[in-house]
């Protein structure tokens, strides 16, 4: 089994500043979320509805996509279908070229990070400017996201100040957050006013109406979706909700789970193009890029319910210590551990399903009740099937044979009782010999007792 996560996590855990930043940030947001969620007496009912709506979307995904496509087109938008990242990127490049545009402004979108859109645009000579505060920080520093919602969560205010002083600030800055925000505002304002093409992801697409919903805080999303003449919105095919009225569920679940606010500052809903208001041209790209593969797995498909709130990251004991980079994927944390291996194939991210203690905190906070531990176990089994070392597979097969017969099992117990003697201390085995050593490195094994339950039963009850 590949140990990529284990190795990356070891490096991350040794970074004291990173651990302090992560601990501070995740604790703050956990507390905020808890306050926001406890305000609603019907939180569990909302979760039940959210879960069922998402299951419904997947069960009739083909119908809903066609309905969405036709609604967008009726409202004056154009719909494109992209089987993979390269196809999606090519569509966006083509749109920019058709308008002779060499700079595009982007709303934060993990979907576009997932498909490497900025790099693809760069190769075509088109520069893509990130306008979300955190994404701007990462772009200025050549860094990559470590959190679904707050991509620069691993950076503290001093680091951000130093970066801005090196890049976009006119002079020295303090580390006061409002001064840092003001610096970004001033830098981006000029860019917004001249923007000709915007690129966004989407939080939800409404099949019934063709409406696209973008949830944000800063106003950069509103800028990118209203000022430019051309707008491209890229949606994973799982982002649909059936009816406009379903937004009443998700606009409660998402903000409270994500930033711990009753409502985020700005939510934009637009349907096609509107006369005299906003872009004259709207392109919607429907992206597969592995999603249909996830859909084919009846247990794993639940990962497609995700609304990218990131509550599971903030409560995860593993994520809140290692941070997001250790996961080596755009989607970090518990949801990343089940989504990424399925999107790219478990053989390409075999360590991720093991990046969890299976404590279940992620399942408890998930606003759409994704049973992350169950999917993790399912994926672990897949990894073992595809690439456990021969030795481990043989050992397991042997153990299976020994455990399957009562006589063989009794014999094994007897042998183990004798064989274990040199390794037992205080009733536990802390270090097995030879190749078995790997197994006891992270866990203790209870010694085989002198008498088994069956033996005791026979002795006393006869």
């Amino acid at each position, binding site marked *: 089994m590949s140990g990529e996560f284990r190795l990356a996590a070891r490096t991350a855990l040794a970074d004291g500043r990173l651990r302090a930043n992560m601990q501070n940030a995740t604790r703050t947001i956990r507390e*905020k979320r808890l306050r926001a969620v406890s305000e609603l007496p019907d939180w569990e009912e909302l979760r039940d509805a959210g879960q069922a709506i998402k299951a419904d979307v997947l069960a009739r995904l083909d119908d809903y996509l066609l309905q969405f496509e036709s609604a967008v087109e009726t409202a004056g938008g154009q719909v494109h279908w992209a089987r993979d990242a390269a196809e999606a990127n090519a569509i966006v490049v083509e749109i920019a070229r058709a308008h002779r545009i060499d700079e595009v402004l982007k709303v934060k979108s993990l979907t576009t990070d997932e498909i490497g859109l900025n790099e693809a645009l760069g190769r075509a000579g088109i520069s893509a400017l990130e306008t979300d505060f955190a994404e701007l920080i990462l772009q200025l520093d050549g860094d990559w996201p470590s959190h679904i919602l707050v991509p620069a969560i691993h950076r503290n205010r001093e680091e951000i100040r130093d970066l801005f002083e090196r890049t976009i600030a006119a002079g020295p800055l303090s580390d006061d957050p409002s001064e840092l925000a003001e610096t970004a505002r001033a830098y981006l304002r000029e860019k917004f006013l001249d923007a000709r093409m915007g690129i966004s992801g989407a939080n939800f697409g409404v099949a019934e109406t063709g409406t696209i919903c973008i949830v944000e805080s800063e106003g950069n999303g509103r800028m990118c979706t209203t000022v430019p003449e051309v707008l491209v919105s890229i949606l994973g095919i799982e982002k649909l909700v059936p009816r406009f009225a379903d937004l*009443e569920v998700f606009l409660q679940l998402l903000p409270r789970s994500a930033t711990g606010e009753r409502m985020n500052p700005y939510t934009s809903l637009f349907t096609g193009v509107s006369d005299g208001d906003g872009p004259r041209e709207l392109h919607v790209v429907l992206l597969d890029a592995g999603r249909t593969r996830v859909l084919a797995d009846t247990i794993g498909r639940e990962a497609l319910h995700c609304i990218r709130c990131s509550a599971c990251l903030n409560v995860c004991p593993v994520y809140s210590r290692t941070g997001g980079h250790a996961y080596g994927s755009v989607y970090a944390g518990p949801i990343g551990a089940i989504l990424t291996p399925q999107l790219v194939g478990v053989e390409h991210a075999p360590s991720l399903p093991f990046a969890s203690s299976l404590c279940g905190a992620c399942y408890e906070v998930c606003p759409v009740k994704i049973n992350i531990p169950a999917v993790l176990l399912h994926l672990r089994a897949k990894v073992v099937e595809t690439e456990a070392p021969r030795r481990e597979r043989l050992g397991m097969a042997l153990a299976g044979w020994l455990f399957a017969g009562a006589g063989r099992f009794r014999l094994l117990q007897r042998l183990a009782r004798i064989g274990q003697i040199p390794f037992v201390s205080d009733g536990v085995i802390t270090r097995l010999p030879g190749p078995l050593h790997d197994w006891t490195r992270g866990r203790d094994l209870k010694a085989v007792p002198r008498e088994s339950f069956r033996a005791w039963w026979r002795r006393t009850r006869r």
Partner: protein
Amino acid sequence: MSSAREEMLTRIRAALRDGTPPPTIPRAYRRGGDTDPATLVDLMSERLVDYGSEVRRIDAAAIATAVAEVCAARGARRVVVPPRLPAHWRPAGVEVVPDADLGVRQLDAFDAVVTGCTVALAETGTLVLSAGPTEGRRVLTLIPDLHVCIVLADQIVDSVPAAIARLDALASLRNRPLTMVSGPSATSDIELSRVEGVHGPRQLVVLITLS
């Protein structure tokens, strides 16, 4: 590229071969709509203030005066308004310019924008703008630094479902561009502490009319 479309649909149908039926959707959550008007105004005010907006309760007959007071208090001299904003909502004593397809750079030169709204959502302190006659184009409420929004008491509903139901009731409404505003623009990207005022208006003043 119709082949991508056909292939994706084929992949989806193949992936769904197990035939798991769509679930029945349980909707046992609160729908709202049962809060009395006085409580609604109180709740709306409290929630707006909590997220950094200023709230004034005003006499429905004195809207223009109240708007003028806000502009004076916040030092706004040049004000843009949607072209069809009622005359008795427009403040005196400041320069008032009705929007006529103004460019974003022109909008950037205004201190404030004055609008109405379509629905106000008390529980979350949210204003819903629908690009209607009293609201204007989306950029109007985005570029100037001060947004003064007039809320009529009967536009306030209690919950998210009640607000969505009002929008959903009119097909013409839900197809218009909608913007939901909850307080001034903000970011939590620096150590997750909320900083108000990033790209949208840094100040939001809400005037609730009582009749």
